[in-house]
């Protein structure tokens, strides 16, 4: 079997009550260079997820008994572990609720396993676990008005206080801040943040924007920070203070 990577295999947690599917996925993902631990029981799944050894969790929200969203909520309450949800196809409520609670992405069942792998890679890249596609890109800090974003340290400060963001929200905010004042089309947002083209009825970007708005709160002059431009995309509103960019080596401080 060809070695995909030189460093230790990325560890994935799979929480799904379908034991046969777990077996098949463990095998498939194993061939793709991942080490998979499969759990059928939701409570154990939460425990293992919070154990801190996994790079990403794949979570089935349609598990009978305990609500998959409850599992997601419990994980999110204590950890920023990237989570990919497996939902029922055509059930919008599942997707929206999941993204609201803080899942990084979703994939409806039944899915193409290649698609699953692609999305896992996209999430991991964003989370910094993988080396970025363009390794030579410098980690430039960016600040607009009262928001400061540091890609190297992966922290965001809003009006001085730190803000906890999922990897998708972080990538989204980074893109919007770098293009502050310009409308970013949804397709571009989808490609950069989620790693895939914008599909019809894919409201993931909208959900992540909504979460971002909620976490950041209103702007310094009580106006909305992120403006929706109908049929086009989103833009980050720049008020008086404007953009301040700093190279990674500069000391932080007001310009």
């Amino acid at each position, binding site marked *: 079997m060809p070695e995909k990577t030189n460093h230790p295999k990325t560890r994935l947690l799979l929480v799904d009550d379908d034991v046969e*599917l777990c077996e098949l*996925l463990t095998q498939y993902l194993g061939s793709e260079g991942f080490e998979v631990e499969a759990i059928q029981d939701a409570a154990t799944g939460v425990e293992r997820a919070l154990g801190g050894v996994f790079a990403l969790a794949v979570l089935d929200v349609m598990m009978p008994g305990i609500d998959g969203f409850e599992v997601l909520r419990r994980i999110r309450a204590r950890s920023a572990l990237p989570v990919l949800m497996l939902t*029922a*196809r055509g059930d919008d409520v599942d997707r929206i609720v999941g993204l609201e609670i803080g899942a990084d992405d979703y994939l409806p069942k039944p899915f*193409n*396993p*290649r698609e699953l792998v692609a999305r896992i890679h996209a999430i991991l890249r964003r989370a910094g676990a993988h080396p970025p596609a363009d390794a030579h890109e410098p980690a430039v800090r960016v600040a607009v008005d009262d928001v400061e974003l540091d890609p190297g340290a992966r922290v965001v400060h809003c009006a001085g206080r730190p803000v906890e963001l999922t990897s998708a929200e972080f990538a989204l905010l980074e893109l919007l801040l770098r293009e502050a004042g310009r409308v970013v089309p949804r397709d571009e947002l989808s490609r950069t943040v989620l790693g895939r083209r914008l599909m*019809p009825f894919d409201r993931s970007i909208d959900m992540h924007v909504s979460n971002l708005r909620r976490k950041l709160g209103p702007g310094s002059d009580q106006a909305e920070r992120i403006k929706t431009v109908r049929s086009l995309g989103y833009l980050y509103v720049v008020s008086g203070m404007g953009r301040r960019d700093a190279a990674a080596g500069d000391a932080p401080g007001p310009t």
Partner: protein
Amino acid sequence: MRSLFLKIFLCFWLATILLAAEFVAFDQWNRREHGPSHRRAVLGNIVSLYGDRALQKWERGGSAALRAYCERLGQTAEMHAVLLDEHGTDLAEQTPPAGAAELAARVQATGELQVDHTATGLLVGTRVTGANEQPYVFVTEITRSPLRDVFGNPTTWMWRLLAVIVTGGIVCYGLARYLTAPIRRLRTAAGQLARGDLTARAGAQAGRRRDEIGDLGRDFDFMAERVEALVAAERRLLRDISHELRSPLARLNVALGLARQNAAPAAAPALDRIEREAERLNELIGQLLTLTRLESAAQTSDAVEVQLGELVAEVAADGEFEAATRNGHVRALCAHDCVTHGTADLLRSALENVVRNAVQHTADGTEVTVTLRAEPAAAPATAVIEVRDHGPGVPEAALQNIFRPFYRIADARDRKTGGVGLGLAITERAIRLHGGTVRAANAPDGGLIVRIELPCLRATPA
């Protein structure tokens, strides 16, 4: 008259007024029957008795005795009495009541009993004859004694009638409210239930009563509970079916992925085929479930206002995406932006199925147009969406049938013309659920026009 409340209220009120009026009329007739002359006679007799006594007092005791007597009369019988001689002078030297002199003159003139109605009561005068045949007039004003009512003041019965009207009105209003309020409450609950709020109940107000209306309220609540339980059970069933049908497919897909990983390149076409069939199976399951949900009561999501212009633009954009692979285009033209009531996702699916069909059937390189306009002149106001393609059209006989489940025009299940025949059935059901209609017609210069009509809440020019 549409209101039960008004009916009850007015009927009872009218009945009360009629009864009261009847009583009053009968009473009046009765009095008239027994004749004013009879009354006068009675009154005259009584007053004459007093008058004779007064004259006696005067003849025996002089004006002092008379005055004492008159004062006693005033205290005990509340009669302000005076004894006047033929010239109208008060023998007891008191102040006669107002109008007494004039009345006395009349008595002297006519020799008969005279009765006047004053503001405060009756003024009665009668002739009394002295020992030596001298004519005197005894005049008394009666204010509060029962004697006054012997004559029946006409204003009192008007007040009485007014009192009946007012109290009757209040009582009847209360009665009508008591009877109709729980009915109104039941109606509200029934409306809420029909609109999809399965927790709606008639509540304690209607259910606490012990009468038939209370029974109705309790029965309604029981029925509502049953409906809620049935719908919940059906929703659960659909969800379980969905899950059970999709689990094997999910496993199949992953197993297929594994097979691809390990298979020789020669196996690729067969594996592709398996993948395609699995995808079709999945689509079929999805559509069947949607159709079932639409048909059943399990579909009761909250209706909101939907902007049709935005919907048309979105679907057209997605359609454009698909059409691009065949050099085609999808163009949206909105003359107005219309708002309708419903579920955005259902409407989107409904329109999407039509547009996708159009994209699949339209000849290579041609354009599919989606137009939206309002027809406010139609009653009720309608929004019209038309999807037009440049494909082969549909045989006239089949124009109705294409909206039936699994109906395909070509009997050969040709993959090129796509689908299993459920898309338009879903469209038809969904549009119908929204109170609209969908029809297909062949365009005069080739191609198919599918026309969707929906109730339009309001329209603005685009």
